[in-house]
């Protein structure tokens, strides 16, 4: 029983031995836990699993400066002391420590995202998943915020070989500054980031007024949020903005960064999202039926990260996972109730209705500027997908959309599959 979408999933067991050091919040071991959870839910039976090639330095240098890549390749903990200037120059050492298999780790996760993009390009799959990727802070010439190589940029550059326009969506609690910065001048990539902004929250960028420059003006969208946003308001905002963006921009492919630090209870995050709320974004993006590259990202409470990404793998496979986590080697991590879903948090929601309204208004305003001045050759790629006309005021938009999606599907291919019907509608009013 295979999902109608062909899914490629990337995993390399070697990430398990990557360790950033004591007390570093980034723990690649979460990837092992995620994979293990995916396997214990038997999700592997519905998809193809690939081991990514280790990206070559020359591939990494497609975006990054050659000297930076070369330095990452060369440096190891034993030679650290020899290069104090370079370490400072490339911002290595503190947030971004140098550890033994650092470069191999970068090669693996970047290779995963690049492979994923290539498989999408060659139409070998409809959706590609690389939970190891999504390190959105890395800059062209320096590391930043636990990120060394920006696999997202590399993946998007790969997608740009086949698609005139690529949409990047980022639901990490932190601003996707590395990706935004990389594509700040271009209209071929639209970056949309939903993140916490203010109170000196890392990385400090991502104000609503950051909209891109030159040809890229209006092609960077930032949705700055405050502490404690909950499922309902997040999803409403997400759906409104994303549907408008897709409708306006008509992307050829979508890259979705699913940083799990926007979940409630994250060690570094401050939102109230439940796993359902987080996964709802994935579900929504999947519905556009565009080539979709899904990556991981942040996420610093590792059992929740594993839960979240397992659920989202399920969502992409149109599989609803039972809430009881099957026995597995890491069961203990999921104590006390060993259940899959975590509820939303209870931090005070500082996002007032009017605040969110203002943000939405500004974003919509900027989007309108695109309609009037399309900088891209919109006609070249005819939309072969359905844009749900999402109406946020409607009580249950998903219901209506599904009907239309179904019709579309039936027209488009008779490979229509019942999985679509059992979309659960437990979403709180869109």
């Amino acid at each position, binding site marked *: 029983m295979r999902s109608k979408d062909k899914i490629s999933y990337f995993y390399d*067991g*070697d990430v*398990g031995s990557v*360790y950033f*050091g*004591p007390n*570093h*919040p980034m723990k690649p*071991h979460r990837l*092992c836990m995620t994979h*293990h959870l995916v*396997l*214990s*839910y*038997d*999700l592997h039976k*519905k998809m193809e*699993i690939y*081991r990514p090639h280790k990206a070559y330095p020359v591939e990494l240098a497609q975006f990054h400066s050659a000297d930076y890549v070369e330095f990452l390749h060369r440096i190891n*903990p034993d030679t*650290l*002391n020899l290069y104090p200037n370079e370490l400072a*120059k490339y*911002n290595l*050492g*503190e*947030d971004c420590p140098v550890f033994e298999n650092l470069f191999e780790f970068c090669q693996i996760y970047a290779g995963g995202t690049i492979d994923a993009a290539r498989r999408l*390009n060659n139409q*070998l799959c409809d959706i590609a998943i690389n939970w190891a990727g999504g390190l959105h802070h890395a800059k062209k010439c320096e590391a930043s*915020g636990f990120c060394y190589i920006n696999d997202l940029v590399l993946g998007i550059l790969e997608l*740009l*070989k086949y698609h005139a326009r690529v949409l990047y969506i980022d639901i990490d609690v932190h601003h996707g500054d590395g990706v935004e910065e*990389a594509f*700040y*001048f*271009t209209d071929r990539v639209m970056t949309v980031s939903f993140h916490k902004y203010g*109170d*000196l*929250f*890392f*990385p400090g*960028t991502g*104000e609503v*007024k950051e909209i891109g420059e030159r040809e890229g003006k209006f092609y960077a969208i930032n949705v700055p949020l405050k502490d404690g946003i909950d499922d309902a308001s997040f999803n409403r905002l997400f759906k409104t903005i994303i549907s408008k963006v897709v409708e306006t921009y008509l992307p050829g492919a979508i890259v979705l960064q699913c940083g799990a630090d926007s979940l409630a*209870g994250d*060690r*570094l995050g*401050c939102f109230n999202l439940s796993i359902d709320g987080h996964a709802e974004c994935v579900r929504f993006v999947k519905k556009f039926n565009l080539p979709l590259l899904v990556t991981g990202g942040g996420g610093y409470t*590792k059992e929740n990260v594993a839960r979240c990404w397992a659920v989202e793998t*399920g969502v992409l496979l149109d*599989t609803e*996972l*039972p809430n*009881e986590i099957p*026995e*597995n080697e890491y069961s*203990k991590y999921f*104590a006390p109730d060993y259940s899959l879903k975590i509820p939303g948090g209870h*931090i005070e929601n500082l996002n007032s209705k009017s605040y969110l309204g203002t943000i939405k208004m500004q974003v919509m305003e900027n989007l309108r500027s695109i309609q009037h001045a399309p900088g891209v050759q919109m006609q*070249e790629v005819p939309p072969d997908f359905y844009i749900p006309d999402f109406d946020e005021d409607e009580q249950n938009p998903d219901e209506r959309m599904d009907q239309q999606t179904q019709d579309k599907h039936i027209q488009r291919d008779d490979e229509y599959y019942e999985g679509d019907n059992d979309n659960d509608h437990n979403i709180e009013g869109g």
Partner: protein
Amino acid sequence: MAGFSKIADGFALDSPENVDFSEDLVVCSKGSFEGDKKESVECMFNQVVSAFLSERCGGKCFKPLPPMLGNGQAVDLYKLYVVVRDKGGYEFVSENGMWGCVAKECGLSLEFGSCLKLVYVKYLDSIGEWMERTVNGKDLKDKLGDSEEVHSVNVMDSESEKDGERVHLDLESKLGDSEAVQSVRVRDFESDTRGFISGNLGKDEKDGEQLHLDLEETKSNITSGEMLCKGSKVWRFADLDEAKRNVINMLFESSEEGELDESKCQNEVQSSVQLHENERIGNDKKIDDAKTCDVNFNNNRTEDVNNRKRKREGIQGILNWVANVAKDPCNPIVGSLPERSKWKYFGNDQRWKQILLVRQAMMVKRTASSSVEQSIWQKKQKMHPAMYEDHSVSARLSRGLSFKKSQAQLCSETAYPGMQGDLEDTFGRPNLRLAESLSGLWIKNFNRKRVPVGEYFQAEVPEWDEKSCESDSKWLGTRVWPQEAKLSCNSLIERERTGLGRHDSCGCEFQGSFECVRFHVSEKKIRLKLELGMAFYHWHIDKMGEEVAFSWNKVDEIKFEAIIKLNPPSEGKCFWEEIHKLFPYKNREQLVSYYFNVFLLRRRGQQNRSIPIDISSDDDDLEFETTTNCSGQRAVKSLKPNYCSPKKTHLNFRGNSRMG
């Protein structure tokens, strides 16, 4: 003058009280229009030296000023400095045995040469060095006219080019025949500075850190005009010897003019406004724009002033007032400043009060915004932010927290200890808002970080060309699952429905018992193994879970645990280094694997039994593990929302080499 100087003095005096940190450099010169210009330069120089010295030794040593020689003669430090500098600097003078000449030129007899050398070493050497280091920076002098010279003292503290902070104490004074303008400007470029860097600082970008005190031309300036300076700036940094600096979040400007005509005065004020405007425009529009503006402004201030000027009446008005006070401080309209304790009884319509409010609010705002985080952060880190000051770490926003914290701390401790309360007491609560709104213009600029642009930041995106699609079918990954040759275990796979949850009931005698769980876990694992075939090993499933412990002997396991317990990261220790040392026969992979698969999992198992809620297995710190009561755990949890801001605060920055 009196009115304003009192204000300034008030502040200057207020600040140093605060403490052990009072290494403030107080550039406060009280000159008068009629006073002897030379004296005032000396006076200023002495004060700089004094502040510098007290800064250097942190108040621990006392050096009398002016220094006295054995015969009770006072040494004119300024003169000494100038003479030595003219002769080619300390080293040159010493090498060539020219101290006698120096003594002579200073108006002392030859035998005092060695004494002068001592005085120079004690008082002036470091300041001289400091200046020398910066002399190669671009000369700040700017010719404005025949009778005018710009004379600047530019104290700049910067990290490397990209660093998001910069202290710029720009002490500019224009000297003319009968006019003098001095403004003190401390500017903090919190965000990426490219946009902000004023032209005369731009050249210094490349250098890692520089302090720039340019006193060149001091002497020649005296030749013309009156020297008047009135402007106080409290300025401090953690330790002059430290190469890395922290930022002062202050912006204050006062400009004074002697008999400058009205339009000149207006110009000055306008240019100040323009400067801020530029920053603002930069935010709203393109960074490039701002950059250009800033540069233009500095290079060609008179021409640029009226371009792109925006009305901002409030600020303009206040600046005008300041300028007017500067022009004629004794004007009865200005009046005198009441006692500080009585300030709150005055209304906001008082100009002087608005200015004070602006000034205080500018400093308090950021202090307040980060103080909460700071304290929590400190608790969590168990590390004083000052530690960061010793490292280059404090530089960037990306290193976020550390920088912000020390910055905030600096700000508060430098000028206004306990500012918030202080301010409220002084002005009364409602006025805070006014002050904030007035200062908002500046603050906003500082708290905002911009997207850097340029070839070093953006990706090269090729133009879209449909035909150029090259098929890159290489490197698509290696398929691990499903396997090409399906093994005989197919039936096993097909029999189980996919996506099943946990078995709620099983045939075990004691459901949910340790053995039962263990049995089902291994049952599942064996099934997986059969099903996955080689993939099982590719994914290292065989190295997942507590089974990893089978390859370890008991002694090693005990040793491993003991090391971690003995080296809690909370005490700044690094167990990882120790482990590496004590297990030379195990490779890194094995150790990491054991740590996550066995050690943490077991610990979690224990926690599950003792503290069923709110467990964080993401804290490597054992302190939390040993805190077995629930309330303790909750307390920890409650910190989380605040702890987030650093995000990526990795606490163990010291441990770069620990993994080796």
